[in-house]
């Protein structure tokens, strides 16, 4: 065990534990807050692996933007504060999900670990300049396409959230349409 091994193991343990808490907690807002811990410590993992630019982008976009979006969505859908037993699924469904999740872990592990698990990784530091050169050189067209994708996603999110709430034939919504009309903007 090298010192970087111990560093990665300690950060990774926090990541795994908070990920488990994020999917098992019964309080909706706590799930989003445990997601903050998971994504933040994952940025720490990237730092240990020597990818400081990716770690900073992870902090900016995931912890800064995505989690705020999730919290806003919880707020706008009137997520109850405190424990909400009506949102917990049945025991059989949870057991089936746990078996499938463990199966996913075992399947991925049985492929990845024998193939690559024995190798040693020499963490490199300070190649942000090389990444930037490649990003705006070889990868510039995919990069521009991504900016187009973001624009399309923005317009699509606006269009979906401004769609009329009910059409004929659908049941009347439980919430008056006028009270939720302004929230989506």
């Amino acid at each position, binding site marked *: 065990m090298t010192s970087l*091994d111990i560093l990665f193991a300690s950060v990774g343990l926090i990541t795994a534990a908070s990920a488990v808490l994020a999917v098992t907690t019964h309080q909706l807002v706590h799930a989003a807050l445990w997601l903050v811990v998971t994504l933040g410590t994952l940025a720490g993992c990237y730092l240990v692996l020597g990818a400081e630019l990716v770690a900073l982008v992870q902090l900016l976009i995931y912890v800064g933007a995505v989690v705020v979006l999730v919290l806003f969505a919880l707020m706008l859908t009137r997520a109850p504060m405190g424990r909400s037993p009506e*949102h917990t699924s049945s025991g059989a469904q949870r057991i089936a999900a746990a078996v499938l999740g463990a199966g996913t872990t075992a399947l991925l592990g049985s492929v990845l670990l024998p193939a690559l698990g024995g190798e040693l990784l020499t963490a490199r530091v300070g190649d942000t300049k090389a990444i930037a050169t*490649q990003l705006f050189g070889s990868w510039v067209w995919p990069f521009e396409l991504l900016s187009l994708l973001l624009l399309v996603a923005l317009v699509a999110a606006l269009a979906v959230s401004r769609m009329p709430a009910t059409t004929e034939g659908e049941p009347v919504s439980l919430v008056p349409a006028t009270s939720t009309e302004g929230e989506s903007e």
Partner: protein
Amino acid sequence: MIHLWLPLSLVCILAGVGAYGVMARRNAVLVLIGVELILNSANLLFVTMGSVRGDALQTGYVLTLFLITIAAAEIGVALAVVLALFRSRGNIDLSEPGA
């Protein structure tokens, strides 16, 4: 020097936990949290491989940046759909049959 089985085990654990979250949760926003965990396990695999097999194009790191951008676009559209669902049904409980 890092032994590679450490990040790879974290990749497997995050993917499994995310799959559990997608299948066990009833609230649509909490299902999206599971999707985010799966996406992040893919990101960690990209970064790990980018650090091990560093090539001239920096493929691992650049693709991670692209994937983070795509995930941001995805969560924006997905949350707009969830809000539209809430407005038309009054709840976002995925275990209830659709209207």
